[in-house]
C-alpha cells in the first residue's frame, strides 16, 4: 500500500471515529445513566444481529447562523439506515440526543426523508426512533420545513408501508405529528413524553401546573388520550416489542404477512364455560380468543385504552388475523366514542395491509347519554361502520351473545359486507333487549291490563322466545350458520381458508370521506 492510500484510509477512519463518537463520552454516559440507550445501540437492538447499515453518516448541516458552523454535530443528530428484521428489509431513523439534544435541522430532516424515500422505493417498513428536544432553533424556518417534509412523506406512505414510531425520550411540539400520522406508537414507562406544548408553556398560558409525565407520559397516552399503542418498561423491551409487532405485518400493501408456524390450540370445548349464557353476566373476551388462536399468539393493541373493545393480531395455523372483539368485562362491551375510534383505526390498518378480520360480537348498544351525544358519538360511531363497510379483506364474524340495534350493525354485520357470519345458539340478535322493547311496543297492552306486571312478563317471554335467538337472523340470511361453540375454531379456519384468495375492489375514487 503506498503512502497516499495509507493517508486517505487514515483520514476516513478518523472521520468515522468522529461520527461514531456522537456527542462524546460524557453525554453518552449521561444518556445511559438516565436509562436510555444511544441512537446506534437502539439500531443494534432493533435489527437482526449485524445487519444494520448506516447511510449518510457524514451528512451535516450547512447552517452558519449563531455560530452553527463552529459547532460539531456528528451525523447532524440522527442516524439513518437499513437492515433486516426477521430476515426482511426494514428502514429506520434514530435521533441522537447526545448530539445537540437530537434537535431537528435541515440536514437532520434530509437524512430521515432519504431513508423514508428508500423504504417507499423498496416497499419496506419504516421505523422512526424519536428522542429529540424539537426543532433546531438556530436553523429557523428550515427546521420547520424539515418537519413538513417528513409529515408529507408519512402521509404519502400511509397505507403503503407500515410506519412505526418509537418514542424513547422527549417528543414535543410539531414533532408529535410524525408519530401521530404513523400506524403505531411505542413508548417507554419513564423516559417518553409527547406533548404539543410542555408544562412550562402550559403554566404560562393557562396557569395550570402539571408535570411532564402527567401531561404527556406513557401512562396518559396509553390509557387516556389513546395516542400511544404500546408501552414497555425500557428501550430494550420496547424495541423487542417493535420486532414482535413486525412479525405479524407484511412488508407493504402489496405483500402478505409471514406464516409463522406455532402451536395450534383448540380449547373451544371450554367456550360454553367461559361465556355465560346469561347475557348480563360478564367474562373476559381475551379468554375466548386464547381458546382458539395459536398458543400465546395474541398481540393486543392499545390494551389500556377503550377497554370495552379488544383489538389485536393473532395467528391461526400460523397465519395472521386481526381480531376485533367487544369486551363484556368492561362497560358491558358497549361501543362509545373511544372504542369506535380504536376499532375503526385498527380495521382500516388491517384492510390497508391485507390482514383478514375476525370480529367477535357481544354488544348491547352504543353507550347512551348526553356526554356521548355532545361529544359526537354519531360522528365517531360512524367510523366503525365506514371502516367495516369499506374493508375489502376477508371479514368473518362470530356473534357470541348480544347483538343489539345499531351496535349490531356496526360490528361487521352481513349488511356491512361481512363475508361469513356465524352465531352461537345463545346469540340474541335484535333491535334491543326484551325489557326495553316491551316497554315501547307493549305499553298500551300493559297499561290496559288488569295485572300490568303479569302482562309485562308475558310480553317479555314472548319477545324473548321470538327474537332473542339467532334463528330469525339465520332464516333471513343475516347469519350464515348457527354453530356450536366447540366448532368455532374449525368453522373460522375453514371460512378464512375459503376466503384466502378474495379479491374485491371498491369503485374508482380519489378516496372516501370517512367522518373524522
Amino acid at each position, binding site marked *: 500500500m503506498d503512502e497516499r492510500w495509507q493517508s486517505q484510509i487514515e483520514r476516513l477512519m478518523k472521520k468515522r471515529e468522529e461520527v461514531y463518537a456522537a456527542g462524546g463520552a460524557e453525554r453518552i454516559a449521561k444518556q445511559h445513566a438516565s436509562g436510555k440507550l444511544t441512537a446506534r*445501540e437502539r439500531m443494534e437492538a432493533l435489527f437482526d444481529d449485524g445487519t444494520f447499515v448506516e447511510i449518510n453518516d457524514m451528512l451535516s448541516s450547512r447552517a452558519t447562523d449563531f455560530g452553527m458552523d463552529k459547532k460539531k454535530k456528528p451525523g447532524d443528530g440522527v442516524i439513518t439506515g437499513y437492515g433486516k428484521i426477521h430476515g426482511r428489509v426494514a428502514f429506520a431513523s434514530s435521533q441522537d440526543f447526545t448530539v445537540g439534544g437530537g434537535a431537528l435541522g435541515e440536514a437532520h430532516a434530509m437524512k430521515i426523508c432519504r431513508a423514508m424515500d428508500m423504504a417507499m422505493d423498496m416497499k419496506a417498513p419504516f421505523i422512526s426512533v424519536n428522542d429529540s428536544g424539537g426543532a433546531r432553533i438556530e436553523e429557523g424556518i428550515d427546521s420547520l420545513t424539515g418537519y413538513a417534509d417528513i409529515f408529507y412523506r408519512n402521509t404519502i406512505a400511509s397505507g403503503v408501508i407500515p410506519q412505526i414510531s418509537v418514542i424513547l425520550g422527549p417528543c414535543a411540539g410539531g414533532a408529535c405529528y410524525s408519530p401521530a400520522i404513523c400506524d403505531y406508537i411505542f413508548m417507554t414507562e419513564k423516559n417518553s413524553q409527547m406533548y404539543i406544548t410542555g408544562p412550562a408553556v402550559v403554566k404560562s398560558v393557562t396557569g395550570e401546573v402539571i408535570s411532564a409525565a402527567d401531561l404527556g407520559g406513557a401512562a396518559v397516552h396509553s390509557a387516556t388520550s389513546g395516542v400511544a399503542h404500546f408501552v414497555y418498561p425500557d428501550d*430494550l423491551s420496547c424495541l423487542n416489542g417493535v*420486532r*414482535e409487532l413486525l412479525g405479524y405485518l407484511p412488508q407493504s400493501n402489496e405483500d402478505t404477512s*409471514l406464516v409463522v408456524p406455532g402451536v395450534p390450540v383448540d380449547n373451544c370445548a371450554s367456550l360454553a364455560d367461559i361465556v355465560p349464557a346469561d347475557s348480563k353476566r360478564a367474562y373476559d373476551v381475551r379468554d375466548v380468543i386464547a381458546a382458539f388462536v395459536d398458543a400465546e399468539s395474541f398481540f393486543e393493541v392499545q390494551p389500556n385504552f377503550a377497554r370495552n373493545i379488544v383489538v389485536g393480531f393473532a395467528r391461526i395455523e400460523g397465519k395472521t388475523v386481526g381480531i376485533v372483539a367487544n369486551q363484556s368485562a368492561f362497560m358491558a362491551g358497549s361501543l362509545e366514542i373511544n372504542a369506535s375510534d380504536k376499532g375503526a383505526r385498527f380495521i382500516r390498518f388491517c384492510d390497508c395491509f391485507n390482514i383478514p378480520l375476525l370480529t367477535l360480537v357481544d354488544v348491547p348498544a352504543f353507550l347512551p347519554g348526553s356526554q356521548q351525544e355532545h361529544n359526537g358519538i354519531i360522528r365517531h360511531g360512524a367510523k366503525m361502520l365506514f371502516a367495516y363497510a369499506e374493508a375489502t379483506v376477508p371479514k368473518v364474524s362470530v356473534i357470541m351473545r348480544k347483538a343489539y340495534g345499531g351496535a349490531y350493525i356496526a360490528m361487521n354485520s352481513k349488511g356491512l359486507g361481512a363475508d361469513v357470519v356465524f352465531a352461537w345458539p345463545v346469540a340474541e340478535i335484535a333491535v334491543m333487549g326484551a325489557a326495553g322493547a316491551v316497554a315501547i311496543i307493549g305499553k298500551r297492552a300493559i297499561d290496559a291490563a288488569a295485572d300490568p306486571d303479569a302482562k309485562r312478563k308475558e310480553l317479555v317471554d314472548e319477545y324473548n322466545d321470538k327474537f332473542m335467538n339467532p334463528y330469525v337472523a339465520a332464516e333471513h340470511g343475516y347469519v350464515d350458520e348457527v354453530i356450536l361453540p366447540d366448532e368455532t375454531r374449525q368453522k373460522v379456519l375453514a371460512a378464512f381458508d375459503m376466503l384466502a384468495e378474495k379479491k374485491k375492489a371498491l369503485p374508482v375514487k380519489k378516496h372516501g370521506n370517512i367522518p373524522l
Partner: protein
Amino acid sequence: MELTMEQIAAMAIASIAEEMQEDVKQLRIVSFREVHQSSLEQYIADNQIQYKKYQLGD
C-alpha cells in the same frame, strides 16, 4: 489461563475445519479482523441486564 490472540485464532480455525470436515492444513486465511464487543453488548454486560432479542416464534 489467559489465551493469546494467536491461540484463540488457532482454535477458531480448528473449529471451522472440523465443521467443514476439512483438513485444517488445507485452510488458508484470506483476511482476519478482530471483532470487539459492541457498545450495546458492553452496556448489557455492565448493567447485568437479562436480555434476549425477540425472534419470530418466541
